[in-house]
Every structure is written in structure tokens, then in C-alpha cells.
């Protein structure tokens, strides 16, 4: 059965590649990128399957056990657009195209100077022989790095200028996961590339790691009353846990002046670094925008992209930190 599904998947991947991608690569003299193009088709197909699974599991949760009842779902549309741009590969491809040449140059320079960065397996050689253990360890490391990336995006005013777009959604749903300013996506790519350079994330794990992160992130943004229970909510980030991260009103404690619950997969990082805040009730989500222009940008892709750049410029010009709650 599994082999049959694999055969169908590979046949579809091959057909899409042969029909859409390969002719373009040859036409533009890019035959060298054939393998990458083929892997890219797989990336998009798996992203689409992951999204279909997310929709099949999470949309019923939103319909049957919603955290909030909405009269209209119009505000969700822009998040659907972000998700499609992400899952259909446009955003990841752009980020890769921008960053790959820089990192190739850097690596090339290091090698010519006889510097080969140490990798995790140099300290833990056993990982070479245990792919599952290796996958789990990289998942934990990646999640730890994501915790700090996320936390810093709330801490630095210039970064918050971009990341605030993600938080400006007042009708948070499982689609909201991909709602990010494109420059914010670029920084996330840069963060991941640096991590890869220094610990050597195995490319073979990459898609699996990404799907694991995406599924949990889709679920944690879902508009549902679902919880993982008294203990479960402290083991894996779920809808209630992450809703507090998106809360319109931040907890009054100065510890949370930049926000709370920054963890992506495992709440343990919030516990360790004292940024966890969880209550039984489910708060409304969003931010208090500072201007009518910002309010107007809530549901508009291009307005959000422009606004992010304007706020980034202001933050960098004034070097004045903005509050996450606006």
C-alpha cells in the first residue's frame, strides 16, 4: 500500500516536473538546477499535502469548537493568500535564491582558509547511525533557536515593526501561521541558514522538520477551544497556549512587556526562560495599532508589506523601541 502511494506521488512529481519545471529550466539555460527543481516540486507537493491535512483536521475544529464566533471570515482571506504563497513555494524559493549565493561564498571562503565548521555529529558521532534520534535532536535544537528568533523579533523595535504584521490579525485561524512580512521571512531564512552552517542540519531531515513545525504551528493558531489538558498544554504548544501569545492585552507583569509564550513546539523554553503565561480563559487576539493607516492594513497584503517597511524605516531611523502591544 505504502509503495503504491509512493509510486503515485513520484509519478505526479515527475509529471509536474517534466511538464512545468524542466522545460523552463532548459529554456533559460538552467539545466544545472534540474535536481534542485525536482526537489522543489517535492517540497511544494508535500507542502500542499500538509496544508490539506491541516485543513481537514483544523477547519472542523474551528467550525465545531471555536474560541470566537465570527459573523464574517473576510479578514481571514489575506492569511489564506500568505499561506498559498508559502506552501506553493514562492516565498521559500525567493528566500533561498537571495540567501544561497551569500552562504555559498561564505562557505567557499572558509574552506579555502582551511576552516571546516564543526557539526553536531563531530561531538555526537553516534548520531550518524541513528536517524530517528538525530531527527529528534535537531528538532529540539531547531525549536530552541526558533524560540530565540521569535522572542528577539518581539524585543527589538525594528524587528517588531515587521513581526507586528503577524500579530495584527484579530481573527486568528490556522491560516494565520504564514502571515509574515516578507522581510521577516527573509530574516527567518537567514537565521536558519546560520544555524545550518554551524551545526549542519542534515538536508535529508529538512522537509520532515519543516512539516513537523508547520503542523504544530497551524494547530496552535487554530481558532478553537481545544486544549491539550492541564499537563499537555505545558508539553506541546497548542491553541490555548499560543492564543495567549497573540493576546490583544499583554499580562501586566513587566516580565511580559515584550510578550509571552514565544515557544513554537515545546513550552519548556518559556518555562526555562520565564516567559510563560497561561490562563484558563481564551483572550481576544490582535494588537493596538498606532494609526488609522495601520488599522487599514489589517486585511490587505500590499498595505501590510508597505506598512512593515515604513515602520521598519522609522524604527531604524529613530532607534526607538516600540511596544509589542502597540
Amino acid at each position, binding site marked *: 500500500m505504502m509503495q503504491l502511494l*509512493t509510486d503515485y506521488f*513520484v509519478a505526479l512529481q515527475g509529471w509536474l516536473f517534466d511538464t512545468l519545471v524542466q522545460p523552463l529550466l532548459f529554456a533559460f539555460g538552467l539545466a544545472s538546477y534540474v535536481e534542485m527543481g525536482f526537489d522543489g516540486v517535492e517540497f511544494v507537493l508535500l507542502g500542499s499535502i500538509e496544508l490539506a491535512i491541516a485543513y481537514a483536521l483544523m477547519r472542523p475544529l474551528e467550525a465545531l469548537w471555536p474560541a470566537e464566533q465570527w459573523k464574517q471570515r473576510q479578514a481571514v482571506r489575506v492569511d489564506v493568500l500568505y499561506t498559498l504563497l508559502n506552501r506553493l513555494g514562492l516565498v521559500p524559493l525567493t528566500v533561498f535564491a537571495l540567501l544561497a549565493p551569500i552562504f555559498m561564498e561564505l*562557505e567557499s571562503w572558509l*574552506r579555502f582558509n582551511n576552516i571546516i565548521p564543526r557539526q553536531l555529529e563531530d561531538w555526537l558521532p553516534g548520531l*550518524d547511525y541513528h*536517524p530517528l534520534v538525530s531527527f529528534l535532536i535537531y528538532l529540539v535544537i531547531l525549536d530552541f533557536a526558533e524560540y530565540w528568533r521569535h522572542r528577539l523579533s518581539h524585543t527589538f523595535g525594528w524587528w517588531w515593526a515587521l513581526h507586528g504584521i503577524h500579530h495584527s490579525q484579530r481573527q486568528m485561524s490556522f491560516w494565520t501561521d504564514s502571515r509574515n512580512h516578507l522581510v521577516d521571512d527573509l530574516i527567518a531564512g537567514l537565521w536558519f541558514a546560520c544555524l545550518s552552517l554551524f551545526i549542519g542540519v*542534515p538536508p535529508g531531515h529538512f522537509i520532515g522538520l519543516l512539516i513537523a513545525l508547520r503542523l504544530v504551528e497551524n494547530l496552535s493558531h487554530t481558532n478553537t477551544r481545544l486544549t491539550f489538558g492541564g499537563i499537555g498544554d505545558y508539553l506541546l504548544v497548542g491553541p490555548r497556549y499560543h492564543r495567549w501569545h497573540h493576546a490583544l492585552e499583554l499580562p501586566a507583569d513587566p516580565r511580559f512587556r515584550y510578550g509571552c509564550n514565544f515557544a513554537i513546539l515545546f513550552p519548556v523554553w518559556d518555562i526555562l526562560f520565564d516567559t510563560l503565561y497561561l490562563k484558563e480563559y481564551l483572550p481576544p487576539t490582535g494588537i493596538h495599532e498606532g494609526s488609522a493607516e495601520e488599522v487599514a492594513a489589517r486585511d490587505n497584503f500590499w498595505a501590510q508589506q508597505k506598512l512593515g517597511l515604513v515602520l521598519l524605516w522609522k524604527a531604524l531611523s529613530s532607534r526607538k523601541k516600540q511596544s509589542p502591544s502597540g
Partner: protein
Amino acid sequence: MKLPHLIGLLASAFLSMSAHAETAIVLNSVDENISFVDTKTYKETGKAPACKEPHHLMATPDDSSVIVACAISNELVFFDPKTGKEQKRIKNISDPYQLGFSPDNKWFVANSLRLDRVDLYKAADFSLVARVPAAKTPSHMAFDKASQFVFITLQDSNEILAIDLKTQQPLWKLPVGPTPAGIHMTPDDKYLLVGIMGADYVEVIDWRARKTVKKIVTAKAAHNFLARGDGRHVFVSNRTVNGSISLVDMQTLTEVEKYDVPGGPDDMEIRADGKELWATARFGRKVQVIDLEQKKVSRSIPVGRSPHGVSFINHAARQ
């Protein structure tokens, strides 16, 4: 029959009698592991972890090991071709992609496709001798018989680079067709055959005169080479989803046969008796077995993602 051919045939005949010589090793680049395939039952019998982003494998000249090049983890992993067991790892081999031993077995060469560089090592102990800049995208390699030169295809600058192994310096570059990939020296040491992946032909180069003498049209995405072992013919994989493998006569410099091989045929290996050609189907997650008497694919063996190399000890001579 020349002496090396005779030795090759005798060696192959001896090895074919080995009780443990029935396992093929297949490298799955994206899955980062190797598959073991029983060459009698055509079934995958197991898998073993390899390393981070392995690309290409090759048998050592004495067939005592199969080496896997690990581009991201900067190492070589050696497997026993009979048992499939890992023998050793050599670390700090920077970004190896394609590997090769010079015919005199003095040099071990590793192309760094990603980082535009060719590394020259002493084959005896894998100690680095020189790093040669090789922009852009050094891909495959071939040697002259005297082991004086190594010739490298530069995929993204559409050139052949010749490196003098005595001085370890780049000697010359020669423009060729778009996206050159595989490269093969004819047995008479006269011509280099270059698979022009961005087009549909094999470019024939008189390397001493440094000029193209012929283009042998095969099929779209001419990619890699494997000698049939008879000292006269070479297989050329044409790597598209609906791909094929051509047989080229290296004396007449013409295509003499072609077999449909779906799934993006890439690296190849041939059985000692010359009856079967095995090819990894990069885009099909399979190894395709071509019956050379029937001239068609007789078996498709499911393996891992992006299979990028196949090797068995019971192979034909390398020319």
C-alpha cells in the same frame, strides 16, 4: 585482447564466483542512506545510514571498498562491498561531490560542486595536497592514461578545466556546450566525451588539440557515462523523466543502440557477464535494470529518494 582487459575479465570471473558478491549498494542522496539490493532476487534487503547529503559513490580501484562522498558532512564513508558494513569514515574531506582515482592510483580527486573547487589528495592516505579554484560548479571528472591530467566539467560556466597533476595547477579551459556533466576518456586516450546536459548530445573533444571534433546526438539531457567493459562501447544516460540510455561506439563515435529508461537514469553499473545494466533513476526512486539482450528495462527496484549511485563487486571491466 590487451592485458588490462584480460586482467579485468579474469578478476570479474573470479569475483563472480564469490558467495558474497550478490549485493548491490545504492546511494539515496535525499534520504541520506544506502540501500542493499539482492542482485539475484532484485529486492531491497535493507538500508543503512550514510551521512549528510551523500552524492555519488565509487568503488576503490581494488574493489575492497565502496566510497560514499558526503557533501554536507565533509567526509568519506567506506563500505564493504560484500557485506555492506561500514568500514571507516575519513573526516575533513571538504564538501566532496564527485570522486575519482587517477589510473596510477596516486591521486584521489574530489570535486566540490557547491563551493567551486577541486581538491587533490594523495590516494595513499587521503591527505590534502592542493585546492584548485574551479568556478563554476565542477561536476564530473576524467583522467588521461598517464595520470598527468584530470579533466573537470564546469557545469555552470560551460567549460572543461584541465588540471596538471604534477604541478597541481589549472592548465587550460575549453568552452563546450551548455551544462556539461559526465566526462569520459576513450580507451585510446585520444578523445574526451562530454555529456551535454543542457542539450541532447555528447561532445567529442580532441583534448590534445583542445578542440571539439564531433557532436554525437543521443537524447535530451545527456548526462553520465559507463564503459561497457569491452574496450569499445560506452553507455550514456540521458537524464529526463522519460529518459533513455544510449550506447556509443567509441571507435566510430556514433550512437549504436538506445534503450528507454524512465525515471531520470543517472549513474550506472554493469554486470560482469555484460547481460544487465543497472541505472539509478533519480526522479523515480528506483533502480532500473536493463536487459541488454532484450534491450529494455526488465526490472524496476524501489529504493530511496534521489538514488545517486549504484555499485556491485561483480561488475564488468572499467573500460
